[in-house]
């Protein structure tokens, strides 16, 4: 057993046929340069695009947070008036939840899952590329309108009737609702690909009981996305319809119900936070494994806990609605579920602590962030259990107590693991190591900053400070704590500046990493850093749960996939045995064109219902680009199919 600080102990295996590398490189990346990049259907290229875009939105969301803290740092402050403030806090929540957190977790899955399961690409690669364009156009549209003073201003939760046609003036909320449609399409696409990839494209021998924990987390999350995103999409389309074509879904005067929105939104909204949280748990599992030199203790417990959290996560949504007056029996159910969900997460944390206790921890930055995650997240989890109680929730709901809770769980539960993941996988993605020194500064500044910013908010909430207020008077006595929180925000900014600097500096000057600098066990470390476009020269065969740690000096593989055309191996769902060879698509403009069309259709749809009609009429164009076979490939395939048929006839 080697540890994460003995670099190079596990070497990269050779290929069966060395010439394959060059052939595969030409086949999988026929065009370079800008055209090659923009037509790429490679999951790594698309994944990196997603990550970069999500980080830009993270920056915007952070700037919005900074403005909020600046405005609230003193009573009766005049930096932001109510209208701008309301847009800014709405944009902060919307950006962080829809445009940063979910996309980045998905993106890491898009990048890592095929590598971790030994596949050449993700399933439905063109759809994958499309998903990114739709996300980019949706988020870009929102921000362009925000800069034109038409940003949404009804909160990221957009409760009706505030967001409805009567009180939501102009096009602000329509743009928000359509952005939701964009991002939900993108998330659903990614989810269905990730599930299909994990089901059908695992390397031979990788049964479900040998699946890396990050892959399990991504699988569970993708299922959640399928059911949660549909809910918010249904709601947002109904809201758009109420505003644009005078339907009455949420209009009590004509038989609609204001609370229908809340049910549809929170049925999505609660699972949404688990959609953000569970992939992070997967990252924690991988980091703990590598940096303790042993697999996570209690694998079946961790897997069961992931699934239990996802399932129970769908049974909590009404706890956001306790103040609307819910039937007492129903209330009790949601309280019980909201309390019990802490148990599977707690079990996972115990398993990780046991792993660290049993193993040989190497205290590099990724493991530091895991510890930070435990310390910060558990605080948020405990306040979460408190909020599950209806009587207490009726005091704390819609106050800064909840703001404190949600930031502790989201920053602790998602950002800390995410940063750890960056430090861990940056070498694989770029071929360079990030600076350890800067990493430690990054960590400590964030740890201190988060606590200084958000702990006082628990107290503020209990002392009466409600949420979403652009100012407060001096007489309330909230000034000191708000100032402290704002100072904490500056510390967080410093931490993020260190992170950004580390990223850019390491890209240029970071130490060369090699294939497996951490002596990690999962399959992505069995190829070069960065991986070639085809991921693996020969398809790995998996012989145990511990990946590379199971092999001795010999790396078992399977050969036979074509090298003159992109081809992926499809295996069976339950037993991971090879079943057939699927021709993967080559780079193409089709996803971009389809994305632009969908974008135009949805943007037009904000202003006129005919947008959908016109858009649908033009769908044939990108569809043709997508579905019509390339002439040469078509003739080649027909020829080969004919040959195969003749061979079979002769053999018979």
């Amino acid at each position, binding site marked *: 057993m080697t540890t994460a600080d003995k670099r190079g102990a596990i070497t990269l295996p050779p290929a069966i046929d060395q010439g394959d590398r060059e052939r595969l490189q030409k086949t999988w990346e026929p065009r370079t340069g800008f055209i090659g990049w923009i037509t790429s259907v490679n999951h790594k290229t698309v994944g990196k695009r997603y990550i970069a875009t999500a980080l830009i939105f993270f920056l915007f969301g952070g700037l919005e947070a900074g403005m909020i803290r600046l405005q609230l740092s003193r009573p009766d402050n005049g930096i932001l008036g109510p209208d701008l403030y309301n847009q800014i806090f709405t944009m902060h929540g919307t950006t962080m939840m829809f445009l940063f957190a979910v996309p980045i977790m998905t993106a890491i899955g898009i990048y890592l899952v095929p590598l971790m399961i030994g596949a050449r690409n993700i399933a439905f690669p063109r759809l994958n590329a499309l998903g990114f364009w739709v996300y980019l156009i949706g988020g870009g549209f929102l921000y362009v309108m925000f800069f034109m003073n038409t940003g949404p201003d009804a909160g990221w939760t957009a409760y009706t009737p505030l967001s409805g046609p009567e009180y939501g003036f102009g096009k602000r909320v329509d743009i928000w609702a359509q952005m939701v449609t964009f991002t939900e399409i993108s998330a659903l696409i990614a989810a269905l690909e990730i599930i299909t990839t994990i089901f059908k494209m695992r390397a031979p021998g990788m049964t479900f009981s040998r699946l890396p924990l990050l892959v399990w987390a991504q699988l569970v999350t993708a299922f959640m996305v399928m059911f949660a995103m549909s809910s918010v999409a249904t709601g947002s389309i109904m809201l758009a319809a109420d505003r644009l074509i005078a*339907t009455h879904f949420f209009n009590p005067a004509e038989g609609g119900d204001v609370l229908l929105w809340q049910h549809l939104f929170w049925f999505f909204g609660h699972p949404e936070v688990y959609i953000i949280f569970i992939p992070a748990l997967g990252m924690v599992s991988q980091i703990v494994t590598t940096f303790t030199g042993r697999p996570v203790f209690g694998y079946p417990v961790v897997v069961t806990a992931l699934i239990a959290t996802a399932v129970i996560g769908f049974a909590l949504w009404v706890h956001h609605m306790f103040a609307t007056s819910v039937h007492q029996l129903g209330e009790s159910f949601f309280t019980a579920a909201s309390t019990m969900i802490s148990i599977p997460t707690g079990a996972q944390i115990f398993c990780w602590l046991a792993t660290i206790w049993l193993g040989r921890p190497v205290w590099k930055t990724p493991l530091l962030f895991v510890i930070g995650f435990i310390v910060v997240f558990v605080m948020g989890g405990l306040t979460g259990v408190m909020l599950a109680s209806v009587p207490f929730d009726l005091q704390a709901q819609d106050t800064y107590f909840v703001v404190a809770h949600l930031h502790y769980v989201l920053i602790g539960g998602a950002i800390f693991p995410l940063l750890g993941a960056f430090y861990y996988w940056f070498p694989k993605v770029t071929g360079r190591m990030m600076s350890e020194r800067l990493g430690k500064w990054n960590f400590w500044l964030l740890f201190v900053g988060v606590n200084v910013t958000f702990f006082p908010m628990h107290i503020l909430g209990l002392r009466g400070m409600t949420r979403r207020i652009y100012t407060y008077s001096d007489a309330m006595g909230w000034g000191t704590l708000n100032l402290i929180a704002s100072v904490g925000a500056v510390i967080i900014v410093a931490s993020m500046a260190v992170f950004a600097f580390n990223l850019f500096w390491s890209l240029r000057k970071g130490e060369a990493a090699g294939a497996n600098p951490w002596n990690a066990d999962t399959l992505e470390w069995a190829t070069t850093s960065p991986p070639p476009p085809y991921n693996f020269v020969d398809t790995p065969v998996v012989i145990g749960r511990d990946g590379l740690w199971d092999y001795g000096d*010999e*790396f078992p*593989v399977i050969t036979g*996939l074509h090298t003159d055309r992109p081809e992926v191996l499809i295996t069976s769902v339950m037993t991971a045995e090879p079943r057939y060879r699927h021709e993967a698509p080559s780079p193409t403009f089709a996803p971009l064109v389809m994305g632009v069309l969908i974008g135009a259709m949805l943007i037009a749809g904000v202003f006129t219902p005919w947008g959908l009609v016109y858009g649908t009429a033009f769908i044939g164009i990108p569809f043709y680009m997508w579905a019509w076979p390339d002439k040469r490939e078509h003739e080649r395939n027909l020829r080969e199919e004919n040959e195969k048929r003749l061979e079979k006839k002769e053999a018979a």
Partner: protein
Amino acid sequence: MNKVRSLGSVESLPNELYGPEGLTWWGAWWGEIIEGFVLVLAVFSYVYLRHTSATWPPLHTPLPSLGIPTVNLVLMLVSVVPAWLASRRAREHDRFGTLLWLVIHSLIGAVIVVIRYFECFALNVRWDANAYGSINWALLFAHGYTTLLDVFDTLALVILFAILQPEEKHYVDVTENSFFWYFVVGTWIPLYVLIFLSPRW
């Protein structure tokens, strides 16, 4: 790891498989799950709004007509046959047999979509009259748009089969297209009952 050993070759494996063994099926399947769940949520909204309404349909709102919708329901049930036959012929690699049934399928599908337009008016209430109107139009539209897209898909296959010699994967596409059509028809049956029959109970 300094050595590598091949445990075998996958050269002899086929290039396509039908049904859940193949990748395309899963694309169709998840599409059905997602769309199906959206319809479930729309049905939930229908039930929720009905539950909070004193009468259903609300006062001064007539019941939906049964004539056109029932015609369309029968057409939908009938359309399963050409879809199934196209799928059968596809598995047998019979290009022109498949094309024939695809053409019939898409024609019936187009008629269904056109009638769906009139079905909306058979509701006898506008989408902007009240919540009852809104949710019924929403259900018809959600299902109708899915139907329309599937008919487009079928037409695309018709064009492909007419112009090109189909590859194995195109035959698989036909079977998945029919698989999705069964979903379209299958989800319509409970929706028909909910929208056109249940207000009468």
